């Protein structure tokens, strides 16, 4: 057993901590509030913040994605669906690419698994909608943001 050293302050010592507490809160009164006034004042997330997904494009404006399906395989929450298709000249591209953002856990594995550096998580944390369908982000939505 560990002996606990009890500090008895007695009847007349009791008010002292109370006064100390009052002093402490009074000092808090004169500090600057730490609140971000959200709509006017936005918090700048760190560069490595994992927010909404983006499908990157090349300089020519084509999707980098080759629909290999690695992100779909690695995704622990199973929110990515990829359907591949081929152009007449034999180039693969995602015909359908859906990320169910409401179920996404923003782990960033898709970004890490991608061999073509085609998907990334942006710092955008402000996305909202009225219906569930709006959060099934499709290929074109993800490429645009």
């Amino acid at each position: 057993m560990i002996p606990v050293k009890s500090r008895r302050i007695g009847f007349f010592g009791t008010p002292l901590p109370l006064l100390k507490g009052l002093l402490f809160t009074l000092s808090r009164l004169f500090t600057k509030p730490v609140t971000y006034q959200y709509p006017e004042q936005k918090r700048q997330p760190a560069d490595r913040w994992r927010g909404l997904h983006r499908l990157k494009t090349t300089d020519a404006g084509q999707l980098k994605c080759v629909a290999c399906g690695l992100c779909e395989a690695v995704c622990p929450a199973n929110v990515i669906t990829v359907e591949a298709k081929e152009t007449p000249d034999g180039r693969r591209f995602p015909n359908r690419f859906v990320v169910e953002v409401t179920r996404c856990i923003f782990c960033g594995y898709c970004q890490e698994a991608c061999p073509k550096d085609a998907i990334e998580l942006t710092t955008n944390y402000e996305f909202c909608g009225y219906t569930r369908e709006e959060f099934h982000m499709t290929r074109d939505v993800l490429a645009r943001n």
Partner: protein
Amino acid sequence: MLDFVIESVIKVVVVFAVLMLFVAYTTWIERKVLGRIQVRHGPNRVGPFGLLQPIADGLKGFFKEDIIPSNTDRLLYALAPALSIIPALLVVAVIPFGDQFTLFGRTITMRITDINVGLLYILGLAGLGEYGVMLGGWASNNRYGLLGSLRTAAQMISYELALGITLISVIMVSGSLSLVEIVEAQAGLWNVFKPILWVPFILYIICGLAEINRTPFDMPEAESELACGFNIEYSSMKFAMFFMAEYAHAISLAALITCLFLGGWNLPFVATPGFLKLPVFLAKVFALVFFFVWERGTFPRLRYDQIMRFGWKVLMPIALANIVVVGLYYTVIA
């Protein structure tokens, strides 16, 4: 006779309006100061510094649905908010908040009335004030409400005793029950600065806080245990009335402490010029209101048994001993 009636009615209306304004802005002070103590902003959306927030809250209260749960005692349920706010307002009737001034050749005293048993009247009203909370909790047919009102009853009765006993020492020193005379007796030297009388001052603040159910003695509405306690089933303006009663109580307690211990409208040690009397009184009242908010932001709520033990085993003996000591000192030594 008629001009007395007219004068009284005007005074009542003015005092009531100003008191209601103060009650509204006490909520603003509370939210703002608590916010800043917790390093937040507090209300700042409605008007500059959120100054219009109380008005917005009041308007919102009127537009909310007034819900009456089934199986309530409807009469008592509707009566309880009124019962809790009326005594709080009536206390202000005997508070002298200024001396007197002359308007259109009439001498107008800055108080609604000066009855010679003012303190007894206030103690009586303090007893009445419990019923609103008790009946409110009981009538709403809710377990938390009932528990809250039970606690209120027990706590208020035990602290009222110490409160009344504490007052006796002030009455002994002033030799009067009239608040005006008590204030006038403090010209030059406030009661707090007189020997020993700081003890009843502190006792009175503690008992008063328990009496108006403020933190750290806010047992009846302990949010974390009772989910709001006695007012749990109330909504709309009935709920708002309970809150108005709480803040009106806080203001009237502050005014009472000012009158009894802090010299009312008197400046310390010097004579007060006539025009300064009302501002001095109000400044003291709001300093005390600020203290009530400040201590709320500091102290955690006591446990129920701790409150009862503190009331009966600490405050009561000190209050009783205080009478003896003050009595002996002022008769034998002074």
